[in-house]
């Protein structure tokens, strides 16, 4: 019997459990990463990838489980401790102060024993040295706001290297990069591992996994489903592992004959808050009496799509015509008046005014109508009556309609939002993550309501990260990836695996091959 003498694992997470109120983010996860490899962590949103890495980086503490680095068991109590263990993390949203220069950012928070003063020459030297060694060209004196996103990311990497990291965690690094920048990044990663560093790469994009990684660990709903060598697997297999098995339909959905076309979206383009393209030429139609589900990993343009269609964001190109009105040229107010309902992603931050009463929140958009407002004076009685009716119809549970909306439970807040948005018999409903964070009962109720609206004649655009939900409720499914449509399918004729592949970047035609 020959003794296997393999080098100790760079990272060995054993049985990591992390619970948050109402959800188990990591459920006994094992992660084994070898030194000098690029290891991808693959999974949908909510699979637990970011939580796991935050534990590794000391931002969270695990409820159960062990962490071992290079064979030794360690406790990582804070990011500072993680850095002391030579673990560095490049976050999805950079931790850079834009008005400071590159070298100032790299040095921020460090105490290097030379007292309060900066030895700029020494710092610059070290930065240039690292830049040379790893091919990360950046001008140390440049201000961060002047840099491109790709360059900013390089600064983040340099920051970790400057602090002597030999394990680098990258959280969805390519979500903000152009294709050329992605290429450059991959080159950098290769250089890093050749020099002996270990890289963990969090992503949901199958193309990248196949291109860059040595091994992949797939997470699904808090559990580590499999760890495979990239060379021995395929995109199809990974997609299957990522989205799981078929789910039994739980909600009764009556087949309904689709109505006439109500919305025509043509070549829609828009930018996100960082002025990067978020929608890159979306073209699709929506019909009355149907639910069009938008499937995709969060961050691929869904948010921008919902905002453009409800007048909260300007499109840069293209049009979205709702029965002869081009929504891209209308204000939010006009669009609401046209009978477009918007159930927003962030129900508390955006959807209600927490300090105002239920009654007032229910007329947040309709307060100007003649029903509630005469000669500028608000009709309190009508508002009260309206509130009582809606509270009963939508089962909003509260002492009375004067209760502050912010005091309601999450489920009741969502019922309030639905009551407000759907009570006016809207033609077109944009529902963004409507069941996010709700308990089972509230979730079922929301889904029931959406189906009712569909039966009544509305066309519903349902955006959700929950693929099961999309498959249960939608008549058609539109898969979005990086602002483009990968394909539009029906739940019947596209398997879970196919949808998963599309969510991760493959177009419909490729999938069918």
């Amino acid at each position, binding site marked *: 019997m020959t003794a296997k003498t393999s080098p100790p694992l760079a990272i060995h997470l054993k049985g990591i459990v992390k619970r948050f109120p109402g959800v188990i983010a990591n459920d006994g996860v094992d992660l084994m990463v070898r030194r000098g490899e690029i290891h991808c962590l693959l999974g949908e949103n909510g699979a637990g990838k970011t939580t796991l890495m935050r534990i590794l980086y000391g931002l969270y503490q695990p409820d159960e489980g062990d962490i071992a680095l290079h064979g030794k068991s360690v406790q990582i109590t804070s*990011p*500072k401790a993680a850095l002391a263990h030579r673990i560095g993390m490049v976050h999805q949203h950079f*931790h*850079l*102060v*834009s*008005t*400071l220069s590159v070298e*100032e950012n790299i*040095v*921020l*928070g*460090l*105490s*290097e024993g030379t007292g*309060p*003063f*900066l030895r*700029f020459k020494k710092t610059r030297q070290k930065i240039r040295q690292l830049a040379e060694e790893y091919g990360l060209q950046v001008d140390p004196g440049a*201000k961060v*706001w002047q840099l491109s996103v790709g360059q900013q990311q390089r600064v983040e990497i340099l920051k970790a290297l400057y602090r002597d990291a030999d394990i680098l965690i990258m959280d969805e690094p390519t979500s903000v990069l152009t294709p050329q920048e992605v290429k450059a990044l991959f080159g950098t990663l290769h250089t890093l591992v050749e020099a002996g560093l270990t890289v963990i790469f969090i992503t949901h994009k199958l193309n990248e996994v196949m291109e860059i990684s040595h091994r992949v660990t797939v997470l699904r709903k808090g559990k580590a489903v499999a760890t495979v060598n990239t060379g021995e697997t395929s995109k199809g297999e990974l997609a299957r592992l990522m989205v799981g098995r078929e789910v039994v339909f739980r909600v009764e959905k009556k087949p309904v004959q689709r109505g006439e076309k109500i919305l025509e979206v043509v070549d829609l383009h828009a930018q996100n808050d960082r002025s990067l393209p978020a929608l890159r030429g979306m073209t699709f139609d929506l019909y009355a009496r149907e639910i069009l589900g938008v499937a995709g990993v969060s961050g691929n343009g869904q948010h921008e799509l919902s905002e453009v269609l409800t007048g909260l964001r300007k499109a840069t190109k293209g049009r979205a015509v709702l029965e002869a009105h081009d929504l891209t040229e209308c204000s939010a107010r006009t669009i609401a008046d046209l009978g477009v309902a918007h159930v927003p992603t962030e129900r508390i931050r955006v959807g209600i005014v927490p300090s105002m009463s239920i009654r007032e929140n229910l007329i947040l958009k309709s307060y100007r109508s003649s029903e509630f407002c005469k000669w500028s004076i608000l009709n309190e009685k009508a508002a009260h009556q309206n509130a009582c009716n809606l509270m009963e119809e939508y089962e909003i549970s509260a002492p009375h309609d004067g209760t502050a909306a912010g005091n309601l439970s999450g489920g009741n807040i969502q019922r309030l939002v639905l009551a407000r948005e759907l009570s006016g018999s809207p033609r077109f409903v944009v529902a963004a993550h409507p069941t996010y964070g709700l308990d089972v009962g509230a979730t079922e109720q929301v889904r029931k309501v959406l189906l009712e609206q569909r039966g009544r004649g509305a066309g519903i655009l349902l955006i959700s990260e929950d693929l099961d939900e999309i498959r249960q409720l939608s008549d058609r499914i539109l898969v979005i990836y990086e602002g483009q449509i990968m394909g539009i399918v029906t739940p019947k004729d596209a398997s879970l695996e196919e949808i998963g592949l599309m969510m991760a970047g493959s177009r419909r035609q490729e999938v069918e091959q």
Partner: protein
Amino acid sequence: MEWQNWAISTVSFMLSYGTPLLLATLGEIYAERAGVLNLGIEGMMIMGAYTGFVTAYVTHSPWTGLAVAAAVGCAFSLIHAFASITLRANQVVSGLALTLFGLGLSGVLGRSWGGRPLPNALQSINFGALADIPILGPMLFEGHVAVEYIAILLVPIMWFILFKTRVGIAIRSVGEDPATADSLGISVKKVRYLCVAIGGLLAGAAGGYLSVAYRPAWTEGMTGGMGWIVIALTIFAFWNPVMGMLGSYLFAALYHLSFRLQPWVSPEILQSLPYLFAILVLVFIAQGSLRKRMGSPAALTLPYTRGEE
């Protein structure tokens, strides 16, 4: 030699009158760079003036007076710091309360001290032969006290600290993006407290200079609204100590000239210029990219919490 006398008196006045402005502006620059707006400067200055005067009178030592003035200013500023940083109260209201309180308190306490000249005020430095240099001599080396030169010296020091040291980077990051600074292990609270304290120290010292050196006596309300000018000057300085010096001296010169130029231009117009300029500067830097280059600290007046507490 008419214009020569003009120039000499203007520059000389500029140095003297500009010093308290400079000191307080330097302090406010640090506080605002860390993200805290301090509208209580007027209150700190006047309390500094009062306590400085009384201390100098009683101890026969102007320097002790100045030291106490600075300490009192610092103590007052810590009240503002506690309210706005720890209690996360509205910075505007807290600062205003401090000014009201300081003005009132100094008026109350100083009632019996009015009209008494300070017997041992800070003496101007005798530079000997240097004062005989034509023009520059009387401008720069005659009739000026040590504090004025110290103030000038502070400028490069404070500039250096702010832009070339680790401490300065921490300060600037806290005022610009406290979340990032926090994530990198910098204590936002500590940095803000420190900068507010520096602001108070310098504001108190500025007030002390007024009552111990510039016009060695105590009069109720003797700061005459200087604290508010400092707010304007801080903006005008683009939150940069060197520009702060320029702004302070410029304003002082303008103030002096406003009386000289009275026959041609009404003094009020000239005296209102710093306030107008401050607004113009704000408009100027509101244009997108310029804000990045030279704009106000992004987190100014915003209290900071780390996620959910």
